[in-house]
C-alpha cells in the first residue's frame, strides 16, 4: 500500500520535528535515493514508515494509524484469536511441540522440552493465517471488497506475501483484529502488534494432543505437496536441459 507523501511529511514533522531527510535516512537505514524517489513521486511505502517509526522509537502500529488507510489501527485493538496465534507458529515448532507431548511416546514419557518458538513470521505464515480465519467465504469477500482477482490473491498467499492493504481487508472480511495479517506478513512483530508476550506459546500449550497432532499432520501434508511440486518442476526442467540445453 502507498501512503501520500503530504501526510507522510506531516507525520514525520510530528515524530522528528527538526530532522532533515538525510538524518532520517541515516537513523532509519533507508537509502537516501529510495526515500527521495518516494517523496518526489508523492507515494511513500508502508515499510518506509515502519522503518522510520522503529528508528525513532515510535510503535509502527501507532505510526501507521496516523494515515487514513490505516485508521482502524488506532485505539484499543482486539487481541488476536487463538487460531491466529497458532497459525503464526512455524511448522518445525509445531512438530517439535507435538513430539514433546507424552501422548506421542508409546511408553507415555514426554520427549525433551522443545526450544522457545521462533519469532514471526514463518515460511508459510501468510497462507496459514488466512486458512486459520477463513470461514470458507473470506477469499470471496476480500476479492469483492478490494477488486483483486481471486487467483491473484491466492498467488500472493502461495508466495507467502500479502500487501498491507489486502492484509487489512482480509482481517476485516474475517471479523478479526487488524494486526494479524501485518504480523503474518512480517511487516510488524507480534510485540509491536500488542500481542501479549507468550501468547503463541500459551495457545500452543492449550491445544489437546489430538488437535496438535492433527494440525502438525496437516501442515506436513501441505509442505509435502509443495516440496513434491518443486521436485516435479525441477525434474521437468532437467529434462528440458537434457534435450535442448
Amino acid at each position, binding site marked *: 500500500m502507498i501512503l501520500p507523501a503530504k501526510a507522510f511529511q506531516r507525520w514525520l514533522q510530528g515524530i522528528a520535528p527538526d530532522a532533515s531527510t538525510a538524518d532520517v535516512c541515516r537513523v532509519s537505514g533507508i537509502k537516501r535515493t529510495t526515500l527521495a524517489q518516494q517523496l518526489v513521486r508523492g507515494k511513500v511505502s508502508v515499510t518506509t514508515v515502519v522503518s522510520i517509526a522503529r528508528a525513532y522509537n515510535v510503535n509502527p502500529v501507532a505510526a501507521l494509524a496516523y494515515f487514513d488507510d490505516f485508521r482502524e489501527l488506532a485505539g484499543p485493538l482486539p487481541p488476536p484469536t487463538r487460531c491466529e496465534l497458532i497459525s503464526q507458529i512455524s511448522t518445525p515448532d509445531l512438530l517439535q511441540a507435538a513430539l514433546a507431548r507424552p501422548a506421542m511416546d508409546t511408553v507415555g514419557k514426554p520427549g525433551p522440552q522443545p526450544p522457545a518458538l521462533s519469532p514471526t513470521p514463518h515460511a508459510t505464515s501468510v497462507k496459514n493465517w488466512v486458512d486459520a480465519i477463513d470461514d470458507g467465504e473470506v477469499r470471496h469477500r476480500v476479492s469483492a471488497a478490494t477488486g483483486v482477482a481471486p487467483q491473484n490473491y491466492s498467488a500472493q498467499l502461495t508466495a507467502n506475501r500479502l500487501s498491507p492493504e489486502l492484509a487489512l481487508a482480509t482481517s476485516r472480511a474475517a471479523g478479526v483484529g487488524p494486526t494479524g495479517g501485518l504480523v503474518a506478513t512480517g511487516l510488524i512483530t507480534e510485540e509491536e502488534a500488542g500481542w501479549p508476550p507468550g501468547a503463541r506459546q500459551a495457545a500452543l500449550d492449550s491445544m489437546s494432543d489430538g488437535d496438535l497432532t492433527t494440525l502438525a499432520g496437516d501442515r506436513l501434508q501441505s509442505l509435502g505437496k509443495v516440496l513434491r*511440486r518443486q521436485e516435479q*518442476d525441477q525434474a*521437468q*526442467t532437467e*529434462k*528440458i*536441459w*537434457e*534435450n*535442448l*540445453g
Partner: protein
Amino acid sequence: MIEILQWATLAVCGLTAIARVPSLLRGENRSPFYIFALMTLAILLSIEAPYVVIDQALGGINLANLLLRFVIFATIFFLGIRVTKGFGAEGAYRLITGRAGMIVLLAISVAMVAVFFLMDTAGSSAGLVGPARRDARNAVLVEYYGAAGRAYPSYISLVLLPAMVRAVRSRLPILVRIAAGLLALGGIAIALSLLFPFIPRSWDAVEFVVNYTAVLCFVIGLALIWAARVQSSKSVRRQGTSTEK
C-alpha cells in the same frame, strides 16, 4: 529490407551454431548444434546469391530447392523430437515419430518430389521464381510444390503448439517459458504460411516476414533455453560455494 532480414537471420543462426561448437566438442548434447547447423544451411539456400552458386554446382535445374525442402524437413523433424521429449509431450512425440508422423512425412515427400519433376525447372532461381514465370502450368505446379514444402513444417508446428502453450503457463523458469512462447509463435507463423496461396501476389513481402519470423523465433527460443541452462548451472555453482564456506 528483405535482404537485410535474410542475412541477419543467417548471421543469427550461424553464430548460434558456432557458439554450440565447444559443447559439441565436449560431447554434451549434440542435437541442438545439428539443429542450428541445419537451419543455417536452410537459410543459406533461401538467399538468392548462395542459392545460385550451389544450384549451378548441382546442375542448374533447381535441385538445390528440393534439397532445401528436405533440409527444412530434417530440421523441423529433429526439432520436434527434441522439443517434445524435453517438454514431456508424449502424445505430440508419438504424432511425430509414430506411424501417423511417418505417413504424413512420406506422403508429403512423395508428392513434393513428383511435382518437382513434373515442372520445367531449368534455370537456377531461389524460390523458383524463374520457372514459375515461364508458363501458366509451371506457375500452378510451383504453387503446389511450395504448398507441399510448407505442409510438413506446419504439421509439426501444430503438433507442438499445445505443449508450448502449456509450457508458457507452467511454473518453469521464466526464460524457458519465454522460449516456449517464441517456439509457439514460430509454429503459428509456419502454420500461417499454409495460407500463402490465398494472399495476393503484391503482398510478397508478407511471406518473407512470416517465414523469417518463424525461423528467428525458433532460433532465439532454442538459444534462450540454452541460456537458461547456463544461468541455472551458474547459480547452482554459486550456491554450492556459499554453502561450502
